């Protein structure tokens, strides 16, 4: 890691770490015994540890000029491993939360293990820890290849990756000790938020600097999606987190917005977090790794451009569908609903584009589990966006809101789309990054695929059933006009579905653990060693390139 940095970069890294450690010490002093003090010490400790890491490699010889004729992949490698660690941790917590809903005793009377604290640990861990690291790692890979240019320096990608993980650690450790600003998907408090702004702006600038060095005249569409993800997340994060801290020595802050404005800002943020964090970035992965793995250009490049602009501009207006039947003006709800329905068009254009790219290569999908991961992801992307447009229709939402149907929709998207495209892309990129022939074991990729698919289907079907039953029970009236079921009745009816969901989640988690083992062994296995006979590479071209002219 340090050996890849030039002397100047090593010095600058030390300066950054020292400044970070000093900020940590300041917060530790100002925060006293309060949670902020704990975070201050944590920041100071990590800053000092980084200084030592850099110092220990300080005298290593500088990287030679030859480095400039290869891509800089070390941060991508680290990012992939870190993403997998987050995946296991956060899905473990997710499954714990799932069992907790079935058996509430499982909090063991400990504050940190209560549902309200574990749940955001799960959501932050999977979305930002797993998803975010995978996005950063793959974006570094994709931007360099599609630009045919090396990143401009070695320090800023490490700053982005490690700084981002510091944010994730502050977020997750904060929930355990009770730090939260109670905005879903934006729970971290002001100091963590400010840090993320610094990291994220560096990320954006790094991407632009790499694009500026590009040798390709046209910017490949995957980059547009990644850039939209970075830029819009920056805007959302800054606006939604405008807040005034109680004091510099206190973690608590108060939002700049109040009442219905606060709700609208939060769900403008929340829905666009879905759109640009959980969708746009992963579409970037899809548009790069799927054609590459299938060894076929995307079915229609034009369509990919049109759907890009459709998605970016329609999503911005859809957030109010989270606030149906609230104090939000009726016309704003209707606006959100209309845009959500229109969103189906570019969403299905992307899903269809991906599937049509595979049309004619179905034998590969059959034989190659990595490509199958990506295909299933495209299918679930189609399903969850259809479902989303449906849920956004106000009368439908009156049934689904507050029920497990929403949770089913979330995980059709999160497991079926986000996690599947990520695993597919990781299996595609790991052999490339570590310069291996193929993954350590193709059979384990296969096992992971089926565990993940079974887990997702069990999870999603359990929640669909449970959600609709729940919704119907809450609106069933007796002849005398009173509610037919008490809330507890509906809880009892949910129990079997909660157990099923927890089992489905467990399968999914086991699959991810197997995936991690497989990746680890791929990295550990020396290049020369003979590997398993079954190849896990794109199957050699059987159609001459150029024979198919898709999209025109």
């Amino acid at each position: 890691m340090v050996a890849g940095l030039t002397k100047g970069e090593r010095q600058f890294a030390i300066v950054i770490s020292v400044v970070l450690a000093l900020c940590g010490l300041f917060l530790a002093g100002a925060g006293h015994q309060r949670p902020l003090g704990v975070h201050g010490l944590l920041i100071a400790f990590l800053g000092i540890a980084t200084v030592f890491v850099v110092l220990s490699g300080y005298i290593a010889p500088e990287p030679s000029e030859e480095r400039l004729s290869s891509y800089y992949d070390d941060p991508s490698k680290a990012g992939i491993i870190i993403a997998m660690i987050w995946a296991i941790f956060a899905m473990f917590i997710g499954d714990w939360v799932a069992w907790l809903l079935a058996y509430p005793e499982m909090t063991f009377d400990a504050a940190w293990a209560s549902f309200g604290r574990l749940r955001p640990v799960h959501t932050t861990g999977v979305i930002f820890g797993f998803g975010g690291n995978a996005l950063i790692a793959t974006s570094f890979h994709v931007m360099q290849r599609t630009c045919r240019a090396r990143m401009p320096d070695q320090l800023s990608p490490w700053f982005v990756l490690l700084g981002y993980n510091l944010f994730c650690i502050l977020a997750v450790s904060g929930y355990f000790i009770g730090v939260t600003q109670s905005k879903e998907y934006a729970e971290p408090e002001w100091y963590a938020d400010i840090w993320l702004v610094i990291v994220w702006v560096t990320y954006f600038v790094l991407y632009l600097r790499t694009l500026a060095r590009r040798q390709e005249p046209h910017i490949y569409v995957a980059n547009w999606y990644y850039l939209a993800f970075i830029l819009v997340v920056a805007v959302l994060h800054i606006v939604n987190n405008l807040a005034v801290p109680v004091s510099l020595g206190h973690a608590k802050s108060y939002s700049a917005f109040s009442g219905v404005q606060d709700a609208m800002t939060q769900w403008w943020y929340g829905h666009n977090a879905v759109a640009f964090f959980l969708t746009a970035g992963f579409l970037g992965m899809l548009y790069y790794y799927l054609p590459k793995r299938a060894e076929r250009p995307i079915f229609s490049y034009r369509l990919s451009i049109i759907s890009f602009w459709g998605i970016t501009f329609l999503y911005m207006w859809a957030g109010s569908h989270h606030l149906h039947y609230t104090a939000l003006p009726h016309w704003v709800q209707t606006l959100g609903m209309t845009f959500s329905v229109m969103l189906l068009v570019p969403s299905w254009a992307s899903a269809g584009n991906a599937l049509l790219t595979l049309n004619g290569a179905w034998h590969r999908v059959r034989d190659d589990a990595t490509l199958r991961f990506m295909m299933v992801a495209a299918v679930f992307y189609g399903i969850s966006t259809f479902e989303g447009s449906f849920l956004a229709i106000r009368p439908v939402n009156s049934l689904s809101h507050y029920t497990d149907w929403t949770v089913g929709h979330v995980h059709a998207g999160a497991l079926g789309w986000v996690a599947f495209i990520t695993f597919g892309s990781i299996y595609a990129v790991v052999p490339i990054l570590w310069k291996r022939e193929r993954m350590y074991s193709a059979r384990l990729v296969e096992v992971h695929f089926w565990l993940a698919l079974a887990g997702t289907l069990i999870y999603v079907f359990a929640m669909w059933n449970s959600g609709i039953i729940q919704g119907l029970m809450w609106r069933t009236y007796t002849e005398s006009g009173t509610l037919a079921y008490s809330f507890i009745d509906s809880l009892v009816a949910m129990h079997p579905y909660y157990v099923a969901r927890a089992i489905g989640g467990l399968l999914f988690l086991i699959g991810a653990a197997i995936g991690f083992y497989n990746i680890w062994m791929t990295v550990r296995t020396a290049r020369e060693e003979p590997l398993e006979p079954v190849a896990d590479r794109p199957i050699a071209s059987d159609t001459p390139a150029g024979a198919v002219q898709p999209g025109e």
Partner: protein
Amino acid sequence: MIDLDHDILVAFAKSFGLFYLMALSIGVVVYACWPSNKKRFERAARSVLDDEEGPWR
């Protein structure tokens, strides 16, 4: 101060999006279908299939 009352603001908020989104969608479709762009797009679509040699210098 200009008298920008609530009704005017709401009327604007409710309608400006219509025009700018229409303009945007027409612009995008024209750009994507512009005949002289076809070559670049095809080239870009193929360019990702073989890109591991290292940066061009």
